[in-house]
């Protein structure tokens, strides 16, 4: 278990900064997580990043939990704690105080304007996340096919994602993807 303080500070600074730009949820920061963890810091390979994403998806709980896994991979338990606190802390404090005064601005014009302005931003980030995860998870024609089938099936049917993941794991096990 690494207790490299410099590494923990780097983790904390990166996740705290990106959390402030995660418009529309933790998934919105996904391209930035990949950029920092794989491309800039070289903490892991594309494959490992995709693995961690897969593990986070099959773990119950909020999407933000992928941050815990990245922190754990980089610096053990201390890294997991630091990354999670950095990703949630600043915005939680923000939410705590804004939640107090929010009702007062229910009909305020500036609030409606900002709210409307943030919708296309969060949709753009969601699209970017989708692009990044699709690119790293679809490295062969088989995985691309599985991805597209999953997309179509889950678009039309309300299936519990657990069944989809179980089927995908079995396909992987059988060597079909």
């Amino acid at each position: 278990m690494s207790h490299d303080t410099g590494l923990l500070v780097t983790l904390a600074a990166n996740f705290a900064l990106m959390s402030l730009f995660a418009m529309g949820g933790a998934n919105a920061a996904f391209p930035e997580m990949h950029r920092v963890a794989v491309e800039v810091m070289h903490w892991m390979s594309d494959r490992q990043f995709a693995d961690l994403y897969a593990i986070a998806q099959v773990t119950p709980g909020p999407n933000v939990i992928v941050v815990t896994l990245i922190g754990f991979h980089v610096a053990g338990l201390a890294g997991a704690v630091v990354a999670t606190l950095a990703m949630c802390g600043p915005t939680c404090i923000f939410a705590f105080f804004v939640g107090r005064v929010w009702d007062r601005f229910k009909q305020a014009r500036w609030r409606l304007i900002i709210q409307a302005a943030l919708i296309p931003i969060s949709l753009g980030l969601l699209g970017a996340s989708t692009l990044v995860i699709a690119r790293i998870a679809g490295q062969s024609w088989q995985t691309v096919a599985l991805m597209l089938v999953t997309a179509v099936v889950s678009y039309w049917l309300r299936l519990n994602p657990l069944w989809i993941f179980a089927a995908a794991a079995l396909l992987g096990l059988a060597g079909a993807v």
Partner: protein
Amino acid sequence: MPDTMPDLPDATHARPTPTLFELLVAFTMIAIFGFGGVLYWSRRMMVEERKWMTAEEFNEAYALCNFLPGPNIVNFAVVFGRQIGGTAGAFLALLGLLGPPFTLVTLFGLLYAHYGNIEILQRMFVGVAAAAAGLTISTSLKMWQPLLRERLGGPHLVALATLAGVGVLRWPIYWVLGALIPLSIGLAWWVRR
């Protein structure tokens, strides 16, 4: 977002207020059952089962959590927990929401560090990652639909520029949003002027 939910006239006095312990239990359950859709579970718990919030209050809290940066559902736990029990309430809601997944995922991380290179597991990961990406594609398409139905305009430009800057060009998120958020606010102000 349906803003037209009818306001129940007797909602305020008929509504139960959770104790701090109930708050902790509720968010723990949301975390444990919330596979791939914590929002769905939190709405079901808060509005339909426990009736701690009206549908309108939930929409209002959800709008706030979308407005704030950071993990939505984590913000929701803070906002709702604070309303119920101040700082202690916010803290307990967070503990319930993040405690169990944190423990579980750290355990998985440990297993991955030791056994992640085993070929059988690797093959399963490849499948699950592809399926997870497929689910993300489907969710994104559903979320994009309201925008795609709108007449082409500024919001489309902002959404596409965000997608291109962050997802294709892979620029740092703070550069892209630092430029596009002010632009988007300007555009939104312009059409509502």
